[in-house]
């Protein structure tokens, strides 16, 4: 376990800012306690200082997880966001997408969101912007990337993909063994 280096921190923040913009400072600087990012076996964990001090006493091989896993660094040092980060990113999301009930199940199985399943989308969404996907009952379902900007979404045909699937809460069941 170790803190992130400068490059790793910048990669992480760039990825997070795609979804929550400048609200990252609310994650870094919290009024209710000191939280920090730690790297353990290529995974980034967001953990409070109290828990961190306890976790330091566990050896590297025996430690499985601590705090919340935000994602992991791949072999080529790219950051991949996991669904476990949803609880922390959903409240600060800049751009959101609401999905119709029919397409909700399809998204939870790992498919992309088509125009026909799109309920609402925030204004001013650029193409390839990071999105948080909600159901119509305002339940966060996962992460996505806008395939088209909001303007283009209006004009495109119903079978076109509007949101690329990144992560969904169905992964808790599907990828049980690889998700920490």
């Amino acid at each position, binding site marked *: *376990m*170790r*803190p992130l*280096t*400068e490059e790793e*921190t*910048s990669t992480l*923040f*760039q990825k997070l*800012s795609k979804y929550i913009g*400048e609200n*990252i*400072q609310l994650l*870094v*600087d919290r009024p209710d306690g*000191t939280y*920090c990012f*730690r790297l353990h076996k290529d995974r980034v964990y967001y953990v409070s*200082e109290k828990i*961190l*001090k306890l976790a*330091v006493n566990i050896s590297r091989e025996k430690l499985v997880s601590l705090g919340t896993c935000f994602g992991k660094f791949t072999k080529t040092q790219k950051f991949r966001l996991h669904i476990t980060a949803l609880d922390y990113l959903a409240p600060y999301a800049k751009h959101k997408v609401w999905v119709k009930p029919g397409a909700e199940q399809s998204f939870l199985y790992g498919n992309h969101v088509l125009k026909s399943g*799109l309920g*609402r*989308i*925030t*204004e*001013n969404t*650029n*193409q390839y912007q990071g999105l948080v996907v909600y159901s119509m009952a305002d339940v966060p379902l996962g992460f996505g990337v806008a395939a088209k*900007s*909001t*303007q283009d*979404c*209006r*004009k*495109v*045909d119903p079978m076109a993909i509007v949101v690329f699937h990144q992560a969904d809460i169905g992964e808790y069941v599907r990828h049980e063994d690889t998700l920490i």
Partner: protein
Amino acid sequence: MEARRAEELLARAERAEAEKLRLITVHKDLELEFDLGNLLATDRNPPTGLRQWSGPGLEAQLRALARDNVQLLINQLWQLPSERVEEAVVARLPEPSLRLPREKPLPKPRPLTRWQQFAQLKGIRPRKKTSLVWDEASKQWRRRWGYQRARDDTKEWLIEVPGGADPNEDQFAKRLQAKKERVAKNELNRLRNIARAHKVQLPSQGGMHPTGYQSRDELGKAMQVAKVSTASVGRFQERLPKEKPPRGPGRKRQFQPNIGDFAAEKKSQLELIRIMNSKKPRMDVTRATNKQMREEDREEAAKKRKVAKGRGGKRKGRPPGPGGKGKGGPPGPGRKRKGGPPLLGGRKGQRQGGKRRK
């Protein structure tokens, strides 16, 4: 007549004697100094006779001088007590009086060997030992060490197998092996002492002695060193089929401590975020074009409504609805546009953007 001849003969004989004497007698102002043990004669007479130091006569004069001095030396030798050794008359030379200087410089004192240092430290003095020891087995006096020594355990004809040893082990071979190892160790120490005496820098042997009880890491290190110890410094060494190329001795990465200064960490992260935000362009071209497109959509919709209602409607432009362009609006019907966004960008878009920013 005969008397005259006799006189002549006598005179001739006398003259011959005188000649001979003259030959062997040399007159010198100063006597020569002789060191007969070194066959040395030292002539201290000033060379006044030799007037001409150059010219053809010089050679003859020098030769005459040398002949005179040698004659005197030989005269001295004939005066020594002579003896007869195997049909030759030999003169016994005395001890040389002149001490010749050293040909080579004095040898430097050698550094003490390891044993000598230890003995000096502990105050151990060499004990005199007898050179011969009584050997009970062969019932004779044998030397303490060396050829046919008294107690040579490699020469025993019967060895009992010790209690805990493997019955199939060869005890004779074991003893021979132990002897070889002792000899090798002694040789190594001797060479090391010599190297120390000549101040030769020995390569340090950090854990590369083949003990037989080396760990995996030590063996790996020894293997690496062996690989590099070639004339090409390991460049053309073959590798096993699945062996990875060795990692260079690069510097290890340093990380911040795990529980370091949390405040400092927070500060650096916030700074990073600030820089990241400041680097983003203020004026996002795509956003501007999207805004422009929205404006134009609105204008077109307003125009169409006007045309549809005719001139009856009093309101000039429909004011934008509260949620019309917001989140709540359903996606409008697809409309074909003639000029794409690239035509709208640029001057017009910037103007609109400036307006909107208020």
